[in-house]
């Protein structure tokens, strides 16, 4: 069983985390308040690695039992947020647990993956019937709606992408897909009316950067940082845009720009290669998975990592609008790092158990 543990995947993830620690150091060491962030990120990485291994040892098939409770728990926490949640910067996303505030949607991504993987694998032969498809769509729309009204457009889109990918991969009729597109098109005007001002503004800034000087400034500084890197970069800890703070939220949303400035084209392509290698390995695990549940869980994790990478890098490269999405394994942040590593651990659990004979 252990010999099927995907070591290249594991070391690629650890390498990415290591780069993340180094870049966090470079991005925060010149700010007194944040100077210990790299140490905290190191601690999160160690915790994450332990969690990864623990999750790998845990048999993912037991999760099937937890699928339905997961969904109920997800809905319950979202409703709790709606009723008694903390409001921070205009959005009601946090639950106060006394010691710390948590954002239920962070864990919600994985709860949803588990639930969808269970539902889709359980009804795989019947999903081609419209009733089962509609069933999953309705079950999805409830949490999505609750997240949307928080409001958290980024998370809504993430969850939608995740769910859509899983549904499509699991297999649907072409006519149903077309039907879905038509339904979404019909719903668009209603949706548009409910878009929050800040969401519209972000899209507008993306289309016309001059409309908001401050946000456009951030994007522009990110582009300058990236361009400033050239072939080999300015060197670790030497990026002027980064070190002189022209680049903002540089240890989280814009860590990619820091990498590009200090490590240059060559270094950044290597980092991208690592990220895509991780996703590639996850897809490989999905192919090897002995059951549809494992396959879908792994693909869910892969699509989550892919989506966050795609949106974050796209934002840094100014080909996508600004969203507060972090770069997996690289951006500073404990909960996102640990949960990402748990997710990779689940995929490891799948690949370690892909041969049936191992269970004899």
């Amino acid at each position, binding site marked *: 069983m252990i010999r099927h543990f995907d070591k290249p995947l594991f070391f690629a993830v650890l390498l990415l985390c290591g780069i993340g620690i180094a870049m966090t150091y470079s991005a925060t060491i010149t700010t007194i308040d944040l100077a210990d962030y790299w140490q905290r990120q190191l601690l999160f990485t160690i915790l994450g690695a332990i969690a990864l291994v623990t999750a790998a040892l845990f048999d993912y098939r037991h999760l099937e039992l937890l699928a339905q409770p997961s969904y109920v728990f997800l809905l319950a926490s979202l409703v709790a947020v709606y009723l008694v949640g903390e409001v921070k910067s205009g959005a009601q996303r946090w639950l106060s647990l006394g010691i710390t505030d948590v954002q239920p949607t962070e864990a919600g991504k994985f709860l949803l993956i588990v639930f969808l993987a269970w539902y889709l694998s359980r009804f795989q032969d019947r999903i081609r019937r419209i009733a089962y498809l509609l069933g999953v769509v309705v079950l999805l729309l409830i949490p999505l709606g609750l997240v949307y009204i928080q409001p958290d457009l980024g998370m809504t889109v993430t969850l939608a992408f995740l769910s859509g990918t899983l549904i499509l*991969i699991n297999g649907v009729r072409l006519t149903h897909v077309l039907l879905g597109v038509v339904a979404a098109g019909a719903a668009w005007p209603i949706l548009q009316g409910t878009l929050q001002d800040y969401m519209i503004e972000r899209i507008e800034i993306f289309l016309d950067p001059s409309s908001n000087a401050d946000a456009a*400034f951030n994007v522009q500084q990110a582009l300058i940082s990236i361009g400033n*890197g050239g072939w080999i970069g300015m060197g670790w800890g030497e990026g*002027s845009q980064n070190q*002189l703070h022209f680049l903002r939220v540089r240890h989280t949303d814009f860590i990619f720009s820091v990498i590009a400035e200090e490590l240059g084209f060559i270094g950044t*392509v290597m980092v991208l290669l690592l990220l895509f290698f991780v996703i590639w390995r996850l897809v490989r695990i999905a192919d090897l998975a002995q059951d*549809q549940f494992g396959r879908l869980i792994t693909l869910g994790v892969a699509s989550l990592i892919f989506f966050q990478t795609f949106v974050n890098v796209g934002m840094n*490269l100014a080909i996508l609008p600004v969203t507060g999405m972090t770069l997996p394994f690289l951006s500073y942040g404990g909960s996102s790092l640990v949960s990402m590593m748990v997710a990779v651990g689940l995929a490891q659990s799948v690949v370690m158990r892909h041969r049936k004979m191992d269970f004899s």
Partner: protein
Amino acid sequence: MNERAARTATSTSIIVRLTLAATFLVFCMRLYSLQIVSGDSYQEQAAVNRLREIDTYAPRGVIYDRNGEILARNRPSFVIAVVPADLPPDDIATEIDEQRIALERLLAVLEADSEEEMAIRIAEVMFLHLGREDFKNTVESAGIDLSFRQVNLEILKQDEDGREILEEVPTLIPDLAIPLPVGGLLALLERAVAIGTQGSSYRPISVLDLVDREQAFQVAEETYQLRGVHVLQQPVREYPYRDLAGHVLGFLGPIPKLAADKYKNRGYEDPNEPVGLNGLEYTYQDSLRGLPGKRLVEVDILGRESRTVNVVREPGPGLNLNLSLDIRLQQVMQDALARQLEETGAPHGVALAMDPRSGAMLGMVSLPSYDNNIFSEGLGEEYKALEVEDDTQRPLYNYAIGGLYPPGSTFKMVSATAALAEHVITPATTLVDRGPIYLPNFFFPDDPEQSQEFVSWNHKLNILHGPMTIIEGIGLSNDIFFYYLGGGFPNFMDGLGSERMAKWMRLYGYGELTGVDLPGEVLAFVPDEQWKRLTKAESWTTGDSYNMAIGQGDVLGTPMQVMVSTAAVANGGYVVKPQFVQQMVDTQDHVQWQYEPELQERMPVDPGLLAYVQRGMWYAVNGHAGTAYYSRVEGVTVAGKTGTAEFCAYDPEIQDCTDRDHEGNLPFHAWYTAYAPYEDPEIVVTVFVYSGGEGSAVALPVAQEILHAWFHELRQ
């Protein structure tokens, strides 16, 4: 897994992998385009972000007197300023005006809300930035009432003939002595920042100046987290002798708005750079300033310097000036003149001292004077100038070179030289004072009733001087003698006439600037026949020649010109250029420039003849009944000439000259001009007291005191 599902799985797996590869490729291409294709452009933008060229101050030259006493130096001081580009940009997504908040916090740190003095000082700096109109409009549009004071502003205008005249216009200016509420100050700050942004938004805009070291550090600490707030070093010019040499040294102020372009062409990039606006500070501005250095520094997003990348140019310190002026003599001159002004109640006066051999200026006092430090301390030039000019005595005015007065009898040296050189008389010629002379009327020569009476000053005292040669004529300052020289008398002798007098007046330096190294010298005209025809539409009469010969009528000159003409007698016929600055030295005390007196051509008069003019001045001091008896100085032979010049200050309201006495006589300016030692002149002194009265009584004692101090205390 059934077969269909397996097929689907394989094809989705292929699609997924293709998507991954495509995304990776797109990102790599975009990265390539940003980092490699457009890399240069972005690297340039990154450089613009972090690199800033900063002017470094070059210490301004120090001014020393002839004995090495410091007359002007620099005192360290600090300025609290904001750099508009570094202020937080206003995020339109929020209701909050971030820039306003930043400025508000700065005002709070400076305690502008609680300390009245602070509010006044900030308002003064803002007044300087914005000017009268903008200041008023900004404060009023912030909904705050301003109080005003009325002052008379002098405005330069052109009359019909295109000449520039000063016109006094009553103007309301904001009264800055009343502290503004914070709202008003905030509006002013925002306005100043908005205007500053139009130029280079990296140029600091001062909010508070003249901050001492201790306060500067305190503010620097408290504003460390305030974006765009900087504490800069900006030395202040200091004049230790305060008002003692105010008119000589001048003062500094920000570049006047009207002259901004000229200064820019001369390489003055900062429109607020303090430059010399008067006196030697003005004349030698470029030398004193030196060359500001340039440093390339790396700044962070808050605009704070993190390190110097490159010193583009080291600052070149300004040159120090060594003057011929003796501040101790200056002190004597000022004290003596001030005492005399107080005693006579005269509004203003001038005392000058120069070396007649080289033109080196030893002292120059124009009273009232002003303390130049007021321009460096506190207010800016514009406002303070208004305030000082509010004073009717106009202390900013340098009467020594800016005032034109009839020279009176001090002009007799010119007439005497002319008469001798043009052979109107010989040294032996004797002319007799028999009392007033009567010039027949040009149109009714036979009617004695219509003839014009010309008297000499001594006639009013019932004294007749009788027969005289040129020596007694000058020594007794007899007017009859000079009437004859100037205009002759029908059927008796031919006088010089207007042309020859005008010629010699010019030879003595009148009608031209003396060229002293100070700004603001005024030019006097030389009256002659053509001038009178053109300006008065009258022809020249013998009476005009009479008046001109005694330095009355239309003859005008500055006290400086009178001194230069005296020096020309003393030094044997050379018109010298008065000069304060003798040397410019660099910080290593190497002489970079040395003044070489440029002697003009000697006047075309035989030195033997000029000696009689000198003798006449000797007689005035040392001869029997000489007019300048009391200017003798023990141990030195002084030669001098008094002057009591009638003048008419025409007042259109009464359609007559002001200040006539009960007999209807006009008031007099008091003059005395002298040199010593007679045998080998080394100092010439000229004293002028406006409306002072008798030259011998009012101006002479001042000159005597100056000469005494020079020969008995100061001269090495």
